[in-house]
């Protein structure tokens, strides 16, 4: 081991500083959501009253966001996994163009996509007012993550040999798809699913334009609370969001870990 020089300590200090920059406000916000009066500080005492208030006034936004996230997961699985499979099997001008197209809703600002959906379908009152209007935006935005994630796994295995073997034994297409393809891309499906749910729960850029007063999602409710409610309530609302999103993130990192060992990249 080399002697740890000046550069090491400088970089360690920088890393600590950056971690503090990211984590301190999270801690402050959690504390603010549990404090009786944020202006006075923790001396004013700790309370769950703000959490209770958020839950009673805004829990419908939590449920709506969870509903949309699960529906979004269902849609991306239904159309994303088959897409990834076809992309893994065929490489031609058409599939490359499709791959390019799939990423576009992530590349161009959500605002533009949302406006496009509104000018096209805004006139269809029932559709415009329902939560499925938001769902369409979320599926557009999250689909590439599901496809990429499954495609990465499918490209790393020898799909061709598996399928030829199964076919020579008389397996039909559906038998191969459900018996070989799907079980083999489990890890990709899991990683993609976590990503889709997390992204859908936090999506705001499109949702702000796609939602109506009857369909406010969790991030839309958060933005309203930051603008109009007292600091403690905004913080407690944020805490509710953290309670939902942080377990998902932990599972995501845990799910990503074995995959990395599998590729032989660990030290």
């Amino acid at each position, binding site marked *: 081991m080399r002697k740890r020089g000046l550069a*090491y300590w400088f970089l*360690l200090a*920088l*890393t*600590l500083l*950056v*971690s503090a*920059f*990211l*984590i*301190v*406000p*999270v801690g402050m*916000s959690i504390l603010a959501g549990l404090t009786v009066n*944020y*202006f006075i500080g923790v001396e004013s005492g700790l309370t769950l009253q703000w959490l209770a208030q958020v839950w009673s006034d805004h829990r419908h936004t939590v449920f709506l966001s969870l509903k949309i996230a699960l529906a979004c997961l269902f849609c991306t699985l239904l*159309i994303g996994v*088959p897409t990834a*499979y*076809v992309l893994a*099997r*065929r490489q031609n001008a058409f599939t490359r163009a499709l791959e390019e*197209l*799939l990423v*576009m*809703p992530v*590349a161009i*600002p*959500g*605002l*533009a*996509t949302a*406006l*496009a*959906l509104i*000018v*096209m379908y805004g006139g269809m009152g029932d559709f415009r007012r329902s939560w499925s209007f938001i769902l369409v935006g979320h*599926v*557009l935005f999250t689909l590439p993550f599901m496809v990429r994630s499954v495609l990465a796994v499918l490209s790393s295995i020898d799909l*061709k040999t598996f*399928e030829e073997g199964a076919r020579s034994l008389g397996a039909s*297409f559906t038998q191969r*798809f459900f018996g070989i393809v799907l079980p083999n891309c489990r890890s990709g499906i899991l990683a993609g699913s976590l990503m889709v749910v997390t*992204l859908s*729960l936090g*999506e*705001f*850029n499109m949702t702000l334009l796609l939602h109506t007063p009857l369909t406010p999602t969790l*991030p839309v409710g*958060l*933005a309203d609370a*930051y*603008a109009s409610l007292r600091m403690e309530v905004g913080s407690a609302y*944020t805490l509710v*969001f953290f309670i939902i*999103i*942080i377990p998902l*993130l932990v599972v995501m*990192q845990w799910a990503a870990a074995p995959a990395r060992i599998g590729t032989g*990249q660990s030290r």
Partner: protein
Amino acid sequence: MFNTLLRDDRLWLVALLAPVAIFFIAFFLLPLGRLFLIGGSGELGWGAYVAAFTDPYYIRSLVATLMLSVSVTVVTLVISGFVGVFLQRNQFSGRALLTAMLTLPLAFPGVVVGFMVIMLAGRQGLIPDVTEALTGERLVFAYSMAGLFMGYVYFSIPRTILTVMAAAEKLDPRVEEAARSLGAGQWRVVRDVLVPGLKPALLSAGAICFATAMGAFGTAFTLATRINVLPMVIYTEFTLQANIAMAAALSFVLGAITWVALLLARTSAGRTVAAAG
């Protein structure tokens, strides 16, 4: 062999691709086409697209958005480059915890990031408290371009660090050792070994930083509606002015700029990979 497999399966493959094709045509391509036409259907006609580049108000906000995005990208890449390589190359106790802390905000949406900025630099924030203790004056900058800058850096650091760490893992540490043993100083190693090795990762992470800073508006929405970045201008045109044509033209321009930036980054990253391989 695989070709016979392909021929037999062709119908199935087409059938599997049909749902995604229909979905994308109905909910993405057609709406975008409509948006483009509507951009040219306002008072200014197709001149709306010209106005996006000539009207002083739009020009100012376009330039401000570009400058903000470029500086966010540069600062994020420098910070995350150093921190990512450092975490990848050094073993010390607490390293896993630090990595977890640095990647925790990965899934925070822009609105929440805006609130984090308020926590740090808002009216009752930490930074004003600190500057008051030090200089007697409260430095509140959350509700300005500086606050937005801070928010976007906050937003981009976790994903960029992850990308840098993954890329640094694939670099052979022996090359750095060799450079050092040949007498290269710390900075020469960074400049001649690490930066070229990480270039594809830095390019793609930088492109994503740039694209998010250009198009995101959750953070700006939380901080203040007075920050005239392009997404806020589009939102105001659409909701307050009800100028749908101008909003459409501006979002088309914004979308085109971000998309081209991503495309350029990807092609040049691809070229670097090809040159290295």
